[in-house]
Structures are given as structure tokens and as C-alpha cells.
């Protein structure tokens, strides 16, 4: 192997409620290597275990079988050493903290000084174009703004990896497209590696360098598609014929998977 993988998932299986009557095999024999500064999307029908895979990488849950390394360390050590930032589907901001205090939360836990925290939080809020909203409370912002705060929070400590679990799932189409552009922009300007869960094929194709399609029950990798559209992607990429080709191809695969399943 010439380049070391940033995220390496080997022979990984996850079984929930093992041994009990409601046992579920969520993932079976997953093998996936993600190289530095890749943008990989996980996609598939609901219940295919894409969120489970992301949580395994984040060490929020532990695999039943298999080995996952992140930045060359165990997933657990990577979590403890804060190698990744995690963006949840809901913004998960703390009600009792102002926007800037929410962004500072991971920095507080990692022992940054007050000055550094303030500076860093402001910088991140400006990155997501919310520089003027630092003293607002989360509930005073719209859903899209809240999710941007949550992204700012995950970027605040410059993690080399971003794990994102359907971060734009709850947003309206317009906001979602704008957020896609912003995320592209952030990824382009930094050397962050991103693992991104979504249920939108166009979103996955637009954002990623690779799309991983999972099939459900038990979750397995059905297909991996390289997205060879030019970088950085701007709105025009959505009109590229090759973009449509890829989207249509993935749709067909998805339909086939769902056909087998149903």
C-alpha cells in the first residue's frame, strides 16, 4: 500500500441484540478504504446500515466483528484524541448555550484558553456566514442556520476527518443546495477527509469523490462509484451530462437493490 488510508474498515460486521429474539444483522463483512482528503458518501435505502457504519467509525458503537482504524489508530483512540468532528442529523445544539458558546463546547472540553476559544469560534462562525449571530440562542435561528452552527462546531478544532450523518436531511431544497456548495467550499479549502451519509443521490454525486452504495438486510457494499467530475464543483456541475449519467446509474442500482429486497 503506497498511501496509508485515513479510514480503514476491515471485515466489519455489526449485529444488534445478538442472541436475543430481535437480533438484527445491520452490517455484514464491510471492507472499505478511504484515502486522505477523499469525500466519500454512503448511500442506500433506509435500513441499510449507513448510519450504523458511520457510528462504528466514530466509535459511538463497537463492531461485533472486524477492525476499524482511523488515522492509523484504533477507532477508540481516534475518538479520544479527537481526530474527527461529527455532524448529526439534528443540529444538537445545547439550548442553554449561545451560538458562540455552542461552537466553543469542544474547545472547552479540549482545554483551549478563553482567548483561543473566542477567536476560533468567531472564525468558524464567519466560515459558515453566521459571524453576527454569536450571541443569539439556538432557538432564535432557523433550521438551516442551526445546522450551519453545528458544522462550525464540528470544524472548530480543525479535525482532520469529518463524519456527517445526513446533516442536511431536515433542510428545505434551497437551503440544502446552498449548504452543499458551502461544504464543497470548506472541503476544497482544507485538507479534511469527509465521510458523508445521505439518502439523496444527487447530493451524493454533487459532493463526493466516491459514492458507496449499500444494500440492506444485512447491510453490504453493493457498488462503489468514482465521481470523476471536475473539482471544485460549482452549481454548473449539476447541469453536466456526466453528472446526470452518474445520478441515473445510481438510481438504477438502487432500484435493483430495492427490487431484490422487496
Amino acid at each position, binding site marked *: 500500500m503506497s498511501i496509508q488510508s485515513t479510514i480503514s474498515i476491515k471485515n466489519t460486521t455489526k449485529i444488534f441484540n445478538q442472541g436475543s429474539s430481535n437480533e438484527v444483522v445491520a452490517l455484514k463483512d464491510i471492507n472499505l478504504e478511504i484515502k486522505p482528503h477523499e469525500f466519500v458518501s454512503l448511500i442506500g435505502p433506509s*435500513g441499510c446500515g449507513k448510519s450504523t457504519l458511520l457510528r462504528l467509525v466514530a466509535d459511538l458503537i463497537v463492531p461485533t466483528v472486524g477492525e476499524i482504524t482511523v488515522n492509523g489508530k484504533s477507532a477508540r483512540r481516534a475518538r479520544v484524541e479527537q481526530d474527527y468532528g461529527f455532524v448529526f442529523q439534528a443540529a444538537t445544539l445545547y439550548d442553554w448555550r449561545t451560538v458562540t458558546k455552542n461552537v466553543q463546547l469542544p474547545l472547552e472540553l479540549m482545554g483551549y484558553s478563553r482567548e483561543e476559544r473566542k477567536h476560533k469560534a468567531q472564525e468558524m462562525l464567519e466560515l459558515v456566514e453566521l459571524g453576527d449571530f454569536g450571541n443569539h440562542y439556538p432557538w432564535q435561528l432557523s433550521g438551516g442556520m442551526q445546522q450551519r452552527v453545528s458544522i462550525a462546531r464540528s470544524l472548530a478544532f480543525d479535525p482532520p476527518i469529518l463524519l456527517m450523518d445526513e446533516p442536511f436531511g431536515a433542510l428545505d431544497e434551497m437551503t440544502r443546495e446552498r449548504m452543499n456548495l458551502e461544504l464543497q467550499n470548506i472541503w476544497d479549502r482544507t485538507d479534511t477527509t469527509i465521510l458523508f451519509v445521505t439518502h439523496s443521490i444527487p447530493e451524493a454525486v454533487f459532493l463526493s469523490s466516491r459514492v458507496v452504495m449499500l444494500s440492506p438486510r444485512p447491510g453490504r457494499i453493493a457498488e462503489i462509484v468514482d465521481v470523476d467530475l471536475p473539482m471544485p464543483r460549482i452549481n454548473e456541475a449539476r447541469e453536466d451530462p456526466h453528472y446526470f449519467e452518474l445520478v441515473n446509474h445510481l438510481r438504477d442500482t438502487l432500484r435493483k437493490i430495492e427490487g431484490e429486497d422487496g
Partner: protein
Amino acid sequence: MRESSSAAGRKFIRQTFSLILILTMIAVVWEGVKLIGGDPWWPDSNPFGLEYKPPFRWKFASDLNLPHLWDIFGTFSQPARRNGPPLIEILVSAAFFTFREAVVGFAGGTLLGLSLGTLFAHIKIMEKGCMPYVVASQTVPILAIAPMVIIWLRAGWVSVAVISAYLTFFPVTINTLRGLQSPDPLAVDLLESYAASKWQILWKLRFPAALPYIFTALKVSATASIVGAIIGELPSGIRDGLGGAILNFNQYYISGPGRLWATILISAAVGILFFILIALAEWLVLRKRFRPVETV
């Protein structure tokens, strides 16, 4: 993730077990304190002149202030008066007497609360005019008015039931109103789009949605109505209930502290029993809503 039914069963067994454990611990600490700092103790029939002398003598642990548990439970079988029935008989009939006052008051208060809550939910001006009182009354020592209510009504146990009803109706009113208002406005819109009448909306949507709220209030009220009945008996001169028994045995505390403790134990049991009854009713009515769902 919901719990499966077997997990819920295990939890119930675990909790029952730990409840017994806590009660045992309290008993052990109680007697432990008596052992270290209580009064000297000797067996009832004592041919060898045995006597246990604790190393310390704490005032609060004396036989007067903290009787031995066996002395408290022992009083149940002894007559409270010479040649009278055993104490347990007196206390059980007192408990029934107080329970009846509480239940009658509880039923009346619940009916009133349900009607007021429903009325407030439908007539805005009533809610605005009356709700502040319902809320403010919770900050007012209602029980403090008890002596006067009892003296006015001069109606024996019925006036005590009025106190219980008074304590019951406030929480029920508030939670009925809150519960009836709890359904999503969209769900109301949906029914209205089917041209459902106000009554239909009330029965098919609002009332079922309000049930959990109402049961929460009923559980609070169950305890409150027992407290109300016991306190109401104090100034009423009624001597047939638990409140009367407490006053009575309090007067003779020096000669037999165990009897007051026994009375209080029975009062506690009545409170818990009423609460459990309501909780059981809640479970019967609402159990279908908590059917465990299997999810990943």
C-alpha cells in the same frame, strides 16, 4: 429504542427487589441506632435477669422517641383500650372511614376538575377569567382554610370530603385543560376538514390525548385527597378516622408511643394504596399505547 416486554418485566422485578432492600436497610439502620444509642432492653419473661445496655444513650433513640420496630408492630395485636378490640381492628376501620371520605372527595373533585377543564378548553373567556385563580390557588395554603370549612358545613365526614374534593379539583382542572389542548393543531384541522363536530373532535382526538395528563393529575390528587381527609378530621371533632386516631394516640403518646407509630404506618399504607390503585387504573387504560416496538 423501546424496551421489550421481557426487559420491562425484569426491570419490574429488579425494582420490587430493590424496594424491599431499601425497606430492609431502613429497618436495619433503625434497630442499629437503637442497638448503639437506645434504651436498655430485656426480654419480656426474664428468669435470668438478662439486660442489654447500649454503649450510648441518645435522646432521639429512646424507646419513647423511636420505639423498637417489634414494639410498633406488636401494638397491632394489643387492645388500644382495656377489654377493647385489638388496635389493628380499630385502625383498619379508621382507615376505611378516612378512605371513604377521601374517595368521595376525590370522585367529586375529579368530576368538577374534568368539567371545568373541558369548559375552559372550549370557552376562552372562562379560561382567562378563571385560570389565574386555579394557578394562584396552588400557591395558597388551601389546607389552612380547612378548620373553617369544617366548622361552617357542620356536616360530619361529608365536610371532610369537601376538603379532599377541593384539593383534588385543582390539579385535575389544570391537567385536563393542558391535555385537551395538547393535540397538534394540524390534527384538529384534519378532523375539521372532515366536517367533524366539536363533540367528535373532543371524543375522538382531544380526550384520548388528554388521558395521560389526566392520570398524572389523578395520581397527585390521590395522595392529596388522603392528606386532605386526615387534616380535615383534625378540627372536625370526628374521631372515627385516621386523623382522629392520630390526635387520640398523640395525647397518650407517653404511655404508648407504639400506637401513634402504628397509626401513622397505616396512614402511609392508605396513601400508597390509593396511589397504586390509580396507577393500576392508568396502566389498564393506557397500556396499549406503550406496546413495545421492536427497532434497531
